[in-house]
Structures are given as structure tokens and as C-alpha cells.
């Protein structure tokens, strides 16, 4: 039986949708049958990030209302074997779905899929309650900013109150140069406050914006730094012990010189 993981954060714009898309593709590339559910009803965009917008026929609300069967609403991603998307409804609101319906849906999907990844909307209201209802694990995404970390802390408390134990932390948009200058919170600062286990650190990477616009998640791009970070998280999900690379370590002289001469460091 599969696992249901919710990607959540409290604060908006920190990278939940980006993370959902990348982990979905990452898991599919590892041969796992995966379905992504966009629960951001009314503000859907996982379909856009995945490049599947023009293939939507039915959505999450149609499924829970019984207007179609689950199978009919799942969009199969032809580029990645085993990857499916259940899009959110765009013209309804969060109250169109209840936590009980989500729980039932997740139970049904995990019979057939190895991983069910849920993209959670911002906030702590109905949309959040729906997103976590069927999940047994949670990844909390934050950026290295005080306000995002505060919200993550609140979310972790709410997850624990809803019996989702041991959420894992993803720190997104880390800027190693700023950390080195002391202008950005370090990973240790963040873990110190949140006191949960880290599962990945994603650097701030313009490839993300390019790939998001193209609808091709960066995890499939061998040259993207963020893509590598997402591949590492994927492997950690599958139980592999992948060491953490210290992104803020000082560059050595050689890489600096290569940069000066205009080479790309390997």
C-alpha cells in the first residue's frame, strides 16, 4: 500500500507547488507509481507547473461530488511513466471539499499508487484541513526568512495536533552567498527553532523559474542545482541515506579561478 505525503508551509509562495511537482517527477523517474493532488481549489497551478493545463477535463471537486470516476479525472503525464495529476477546480472554493472526502479519496488512491503527494494551499483554514486529512506524512517547506519559519512552526504544531507525527523539513531558496555574509538564516538557525528533521535544502536557482514557465520540473534537468537537490530528496524518501552537501562551504581556489577564466565548474 502506498504512502500519502502532504507538502505544506503555512506561508504562501515558499515553494510547495514547485516541490510537489519536482518530487512527483523525481519519484516517477525512480520507477514509482505516483499521483499528485492539487488541493489549492480556486488557485490551482500545479497543472501549469507540470505543463498539463491543457489536458484538464475533470477535477478534484468533480471526483468528490461523484460527477466522474477517479480514473477519469487523473491526467497521465506522458513524459514520465507512472506519473498522474489530479488537478484542483478553478471555479469553486475550498469549501467544495471536506476532510472526510479527502480521506476517502486518499485511501482509494494509495491502494493503487506507491506515492500520493498532496500540494497544500497557503493558510491554516479549510484548504489546509482538507490537504492534511488523508496524509500520514508531511513535508514542511520554508524559506530562510523569519516570517516563513514562524508560519512553519505554527504548521508543525497543527500537524502534530492532527496526529501527523515527525514532519520533515525542506528549506527552499537558500542563498549560500547571503548565508556566508551573515545576511540570511542558516540551516542550523532554522532547525534550532523548528526542532524537526531535515530532508532537503534547495538552493535559490533561476532554473526553477525557467523550468516552471516551461512546465518541465527542474528535477529532470541534470545541470540544475535545485534539480540535484530534489533528486536527493527523492532518494531520501525512498530510504536511501544521502549525505547533505554543505551549500555554504567556502569555494576552493580552483573553482574560483575557473570561474575567473570563464569555465563552468563541474
Amino acid at each position: 500500500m502506498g504512502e500519502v505525503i502532504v507538502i505544506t508551509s503555512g506561508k504562501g509562495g515558499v515553494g510547495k507547488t514547485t516541490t510537489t511537482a519536482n518530487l512527483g517527477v523525481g519519484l516517477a523517474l525512480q520507477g514509482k507509481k505516483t499521483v499528485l493532488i492539487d488541493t489549492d481549489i480556486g488557485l490551482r497551478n500545479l497543472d501549469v507547473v507540470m505543463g498539463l493545463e491543457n489536458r484538464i477535463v475533470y477535477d478534484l471537486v468533480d471526483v468528490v461530488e461523484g460527477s466522474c470516476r477517479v480514473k477519469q479525472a487523473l491526467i497521465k503525464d506522458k513524459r514520465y511513466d507512472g506519473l498522474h495529476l489530479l488537478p484542483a477546480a478553478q471555479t469553486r472554493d475550498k469549501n467544495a471539499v471536506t476532510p472526510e472526502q479527502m480521506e476517502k479519496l486518499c485511501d482509494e488512491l494509495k491502494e493503487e499508487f506507491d506515492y500520493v503527494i498532496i500540494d497544500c494551499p497557503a493558510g491554516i483554514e479549510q484548504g489546509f484541513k482538507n490537504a492534511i486529512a488523508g496524509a500520514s506524512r508531511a513535508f514542511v517547506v520554508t524559506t530562510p526568512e523569519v516570517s516563513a519559519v514562524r508560519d512553519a512552526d505554527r504548521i508543525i504544531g497543527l500537524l502534530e495536533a492532527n496526529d501527523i507525527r515527525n514532519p520533515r523539513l525542506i528549506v527552499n531558496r537558500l542563498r549560500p552567498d547571503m548565508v556566508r555574509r551573515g545576511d540570511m538564516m542558516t540551516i542550523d538557525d532554522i532547525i534550532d527553532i523548528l526542532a524537526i528533521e531535515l530532508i532537503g535544502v534547495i538552493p535559490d536557482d533561476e532554473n526553477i523559474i525557467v523550468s516552471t514557465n516551461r512546465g518541465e520540473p527542474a528535477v529532470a534537468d541534470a545541470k540544475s542545482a535545485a534539480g540535484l537537490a530534489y533528486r536527493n530528496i527523492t532518494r531520501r524518501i525512498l530510504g536511501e541515506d544521502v549525505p547533505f552537501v554543505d551549500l555554504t562551504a567556502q569555494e576552493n581556489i580552483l573553482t574560483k579561478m575557473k570561474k575567473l577564466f570563464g569555465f563552468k565548474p563541474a
Partner: protein
Amino acid sequence: MEASGVVFKGSTEGLSIIVPEEYTADQLITEVSGKIQANARFFRGARLKVTYHGIRLSADEEARLFKILDEQSGAVIESLNRSGTGAPPSAAMSASRRGQTPAPLRRFFTKGQDESDCKFIRTTVRGGTRIQYEGSVVVVGDVNPGAEIVAAGNVIVLGLLRGMVHAGAGGSRDAFISALKLKPTQLRIADLIARCPDDPDTPGVYPEIASVRDGMIVVNPLYERS
């Protein structure tokens, strides 16, 4: 930066501004403005009765001071008076607030701080959580920013305290707050309020205890080191 001459003293009764005798109204207003901006988080959303001590202001100057407080603090300024004039703040406050405030914690437990019921919390108290208890509270873990602990008795944190703790909430100034690392956003004991003085980034390195001495919250190392 030169030491500021104007002192703010907060309590649940309101805010007292203590002004050196030799200050002019302009000096006062400039310093108050600076202090308010530095402490915006402290004032936001509060309702304050403000008294000032040690200087006489003309009606015009008082109006300017009021304007600064009102516009910059983010608090609702209910009144501004020179100390010794106007209604005593405690009486005025309890009359105007009655019915709005949550039921006060029973004073029963606070008579003797040394013996009261105790609540133990064995997890991190996260932002958005409020713990209210009619006895003492012991947290085995951290208290994060945005969390609130309100206890009629004492509060002990076996971890890093970064949130808000109110001990002696039933009115007892004998209550104390102690933490392995004390870096609160705010501490309250009975009717007194204190903010963390220095920069909030460096956690305290040794256990500390906050208690009331001479009508003020003071923080001392838990173990006096030789």
C-alpha cells in the same frame, strides 16, 4: 549611540514615560518617537493609558506627544496624562475593561507560590499555541516565538524560551520565570511587563531567572558564578 534619557515602563495598567527634569518637549518627542519605532512589536494592538513623569508640557506639546504615540506605536492610546493628574489608571482600567477581559485566573493558587498545582509539557510549545493554567507550568522543551504561556504560578522552561511568558498572572509578584536559555519576546510577572533588552539573535548562554525586585522585573543568572 548615546544612552537614552527617557525611560519607558510598562505594566498592565498602561505605559509610564519617565522624563529627565532638564529635558525640553522637543527632546522628549524625538526620543519617544525613536523608542516607539524600535519597540513597535511591543505596542502593536495594545490599548494604553499613558502617563508621563518629570516634565510639564503645554497643552500643545502634549497634543504633539499624543499624536506621535497614536500614529507610530500601533497601539490605541486611551489617554495621555501627566502623572498625578486624571483618574488613577488601575481604577479607570478595571472599570472600562470589565466584561471584556477573560475571567481572571483564580488568586487562590497564587497566595503561596511555593505550593501550587503544576502542569508539565513535554514538547516544544510552538507559535500560535496558548497555554493557560491556574498553577505553575514546567516545559520540558522550547517555547517558540508566537507561543504564550500564562500561569497563575511560576513558569520553568527546560529549554530555550523565545515566546511570551506571563507568571503570577493572578496578580502575584512573587512568581518567577526561569529558563535554561532566556530570550523571550516578552516577560510578564503579575502586572509588570518586560521586554528582552539586547539583540534577540544570541541566545543566553546560561540559565537565568526573572523575578520582581523593587517593582521591576529583573533577570539574574540562576547560578551566581564565582
